[in-house]
């Protein structure tokens, strides 16, 4: 029974991890850059939902739905203002620039949230309260809501990527921007769309995590590190890899923290298990589970 409850919890958390990792993966696939401010974008989503639902007192489902376009526009704005021009004019040392600029953006957002919202822990209500009981198995309502909504969003995303024209355009740019441009796909627009969707996914994950783990300016850091581990584990830019990697990480965290013989250390190192996973991947399968082997000159 204990095993089953733990597994159920891991699967619920894993679905939410998948949501945020997919955003990171999509951005990497299309723009070929790691968004080091991913955790802070997740935090922005958390606060956005909180403000809509608690400060403006909108109905919960409307708050959640309304946060999607806002987050998308926020993502497009970031891409336009910080990433587009250097890409367009083929800035020297663009790779280093994007790492620095996204990291600095993260630091900025986190420290902006601090004076604006204060350091307090905020909580917006989840869509469903209470908890669901199946025999001995108990799953809290906020977690279940989070997992179901995340599941739905992932489903829509996959449909969009594989079944719509725009989605196919995104994947084409991810495979080869040059070839995509030749067949008439607007690469710049695709990059903005991909960044917008990526930020939206992170933000929705934040809005769903908010009721479960509380919203505060520093919430992004640990989630961001988890998302990094997941994409390296699954293979950078791989959609399938991000989903599988997310569940692996959630299961390792859940069981790792109860199976280790020294209970004190087991819990203390909970956030470090993923990092050990990362080192193992880099040692034995650097391209990740579903990544393509890198071609080198």
């Amino acid at each position: 029974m204990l095993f089953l409850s733990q597994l159920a919890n891991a699967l619920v958390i894993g679905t939410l991890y998948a949501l945020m990792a997919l955003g990171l993966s999509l951005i990497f696939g299309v723009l070929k850059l790691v968004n080091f401010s991913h955790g802070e974008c997740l935090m922005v989503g958390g606060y956005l939902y909180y403000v809509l639902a608690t400060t403006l007192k909108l109905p919960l489902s409307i708050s959640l739905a309304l946060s999607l376009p806002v987050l998308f526009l926020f993502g497009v704005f970031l891409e336009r203002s910080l990433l587009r021009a250097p890409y367009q004019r083929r800035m020297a040392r663009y790779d280093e620039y994007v790492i620095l600029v996204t990291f600095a953006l993260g630091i900025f957002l986190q420290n902006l949230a601090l004076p604006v919202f204060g350091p307090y822990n905020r909580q917006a209500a989840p869509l469903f309260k209470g908890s669901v009981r199946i025999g001995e198995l108990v799953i809290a309502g906020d977690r279940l809501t989070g997992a179901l909504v995340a599941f739905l969003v992932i489903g829509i995303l996959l449909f969009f990527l594989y079944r719509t024209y725009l989605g196919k355009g995104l994947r084409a740019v991810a495979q080869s921007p040059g070839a995509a441009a030749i067949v008439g796909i607007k690469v710049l627009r695709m990059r903005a769309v991909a960044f917008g969707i990526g930020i939206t996914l992170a933000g929705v994950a934040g809005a769903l995590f908010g009721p479960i783990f509380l919203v505060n300016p520093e919430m992004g850091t640990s989630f961001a590190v988890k998302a990094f581990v997941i994409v390296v584990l699954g293979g950078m830019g791989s959609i399938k890899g991000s989903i599988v990697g997310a569940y692996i990480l959630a299961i390792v965290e859940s069981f790792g923290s109860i199976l280790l013989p020294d209970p004190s250390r087991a819990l203390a190192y909970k956030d470090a298990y993923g990092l050990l996973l990362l080192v193992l991947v880099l040692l034995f399968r650097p391209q990740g589970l579903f990544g393509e082997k890198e071609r080198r000159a």
Partner: protein
Amino acid sequence: MKRIFPALLVLAALLFPFFFRDYWLYVGIIGLYYAILASSWSMLAGQVGLISFAHAAFAGIGAYTSALLVIHGGLSIPLAMAAGALAAAVVGLGIGALTLRMRGPYLALTTLAFSEILRIFITAEYQLTQGSIGLKVPLILDGNKLVCYYTGLALFVLTLVVLTFLIHSRVGLLLVAMREDEDGAATRGVDTVAYRLIAFVVTSAFAGLAGGYYAHVVGLVSPQMVRIGEMGLILAMSVFGGLESLLGAALGAIFLQTLTEYLRIFAEWRLAIFGALVLFTLKFAPEGILPRAYLYAERFMDRWLSRAPR
């Protein structure tokens, strides 16, 4: 003139403690720690093109190694500091060997994750490190501020000299060549991984050295030292002073450190302001805000000088 300027700078640095005492001297002592970190990090990011987020973590490794060796090993402080630098170099070698084989953002990702694991490790292993309470460290000569300051200055000059030497050596030349065209360098038979590894290990060692210095002048090290926010501060300082110049980054560090003291009134907004300034700098003045400011100042001075009667 070219000779006079460094001499003046050195003189100013040497005379600093005679004009500023007590708290401002303390600010100077801490400023030197950041100056070493910023200049070595900018060497890595600017000259080699490697972005590492573990620089603060390496300083932490140097600090804890040095502190523990003095406390439990009975080593003298200078020896322990050297050992701290060595420890940082060894860890740097491990991380570098793991990630530098691959291109792209792997180094940045892994070093970020490493910083977090190190913070968790230091907090969790409290029997060894005293955890979040912080480890009390013996001070250099009981914390005599003058000695601390000159020690820091000496280490800072050492960092600049060694790194400048490295840049102007054959290794430095190859590193810049690789930064501009890696495939080109590789096809001409340059072992790109090995040269990058050298640069990563050397700069990590200097971060470790800076950490050891910090431990023995503040008298306390805690896991807060390796927070990601600290790394953000180092990045801000380097970007401010310009990634292309070691001295520029160091001056950026001292400038921000001074600014911090004055922004105390806006304590809450301080880091948000720094973050915004960094974004602004990266977008509009990627060579650094201080070099850009000098440029404008120079133009102004020229105009002013040419107008003044001889």
